């Protein structure tokens, strides 16, 4: 099961009130109220768009993916029972769609696990140290987009989204050891990229 950074309750609302408000919102969406679905979109699109951009490596694909996620969510809202928070339900749905896309793309390029050559990563990542300043967010996003597909997916799930290696291995369908090696290679590669 994917845990991940959990949804945040609206300010001033406890979990019970927030859950009741979510169920009410979902009910309005099910009745076809566009304004309600827009409210749901505004609450969750940022986080899901970020996940898509980082997993897919480019904003244009992520934008298309975001549309598919929310259209699919609208169709599947009938099955939402409120057992999990709406944010968690949407996150899982988004993750499954993004991963389907990543897997089919990786199957074409053969890159779900074999993105980086060990010797190159070691040579690139273990040289001089990073400049002694905070890592710039934009530089990090850019470097992330340069990582090979599989390596990037494992790194995003582990270091950005906060999943354990066991969870990353479940989600990506790879061995736990492979998840570790992919994340570790990604960090070394990022060190090389961020030094440029």
């Amino acid at each position, binding site marked *: 099961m994917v845990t991940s950074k959990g949804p945040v309750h609206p300010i001033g609302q406890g979990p019970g009130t927030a859950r009741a408000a979510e169920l009410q919102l979902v009910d309005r969406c099910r009745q076809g109220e566009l304004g309600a679905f827009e409210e749901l979109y505004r609450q969750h699109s940022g986080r899901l768009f970020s996940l898509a951009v980082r997993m897919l490596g480019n904003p244009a694909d992520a934008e298309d993916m975001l549309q598919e996620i929310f259209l699919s969510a609208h*169709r599947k809202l009938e099955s939402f029972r409120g057992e999990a928070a709406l944010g968690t339900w949407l996150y899982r749905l988004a993750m499954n769609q993004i991963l389907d896309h990543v897997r089919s793309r990786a199957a074409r390029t053969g890159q779900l696990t074999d993105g980086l050559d060990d010797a190159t990563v070691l040579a690139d990542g273990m040289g001089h*140290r990073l400049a002694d300043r905070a890592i710039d967010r934009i530089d990090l996003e850019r470097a992330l987009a340069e990582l090979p597909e599989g390596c990037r997916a494992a790194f995003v799930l582990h270091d950005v989204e906060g999943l354990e290696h066991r969870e990353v291995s479940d989600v990506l369908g790879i061995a736990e050891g492979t998840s570790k090696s992919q994340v570790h290679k990604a960090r070394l590669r990022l060190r090389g990229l961020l030094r440029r």
Partner: protein
Amino acid sequence: MTCERYLNSIQESVDGTIGSIRRAELEMHLDECADCRALRDDLQRIHDAAASLPALEAPDRAWLQIAGRLRQEGRIREIAPAPGPRPNYVAWLAAAAAVILAVVTAMMLLVPQKAAPVQRAQTAPPAAGTGNTGGGNAPASQSVEAAQTEVDAAQQQFEKAIENLEKVAKANVEALDPGTSATIDKNLGIIDQAIADSRAATRAEPTNVAARETLFEALRHKVTLLQDTISLINEMRKGNNAAAAQLVNKS
């Protein structure tokens, strides 16, 4: 040179999964090896920076496209007309556009020298009705042709207002710095795309109230952005940087 035999321990230390014995061994090594210490610090910083990456903002057009597709798929419930005589929404929009035209005229007087002249006929308030005359109430049912005629008439009013605002803005654009000007152009591009999408949806279904509302909402956005642009130009010309900054922040 970093010691490769400690590489796994360094990574596991960053993961937070290293055992206590290996941790102690690693710490002893790090006390003596500056390269490995630098590597551990850098990987930790990369991990921490990744964990604190903020959420990105999805582009506005993504929502417009989602809403358009939901409508195409018939998944949106159209708002039923209120019982009794319904206010003539389109005629109200035409009246709103007329007010905008008057505002444009006033604003053009504020923008000195280079403002493009406006034809008198365009500044005169247009008729409030757009096919439905008298009292502003539409008939209970509308034919597709009548609905399309109403939408077209209201659109024309908006387009006149937009055209005039664009003339003024373009004639005075040099008052803005290139960065602000580029941002405004980018936003106008997004709004234009939204207008084109919702116009296509309205043409496909002229009686679709929600599609109309989206179209007029996008047109209103464009008018507002252009009005703000002209206000910004005025404030820049007057050297009123505080007011200009306020307008930029509002945008």
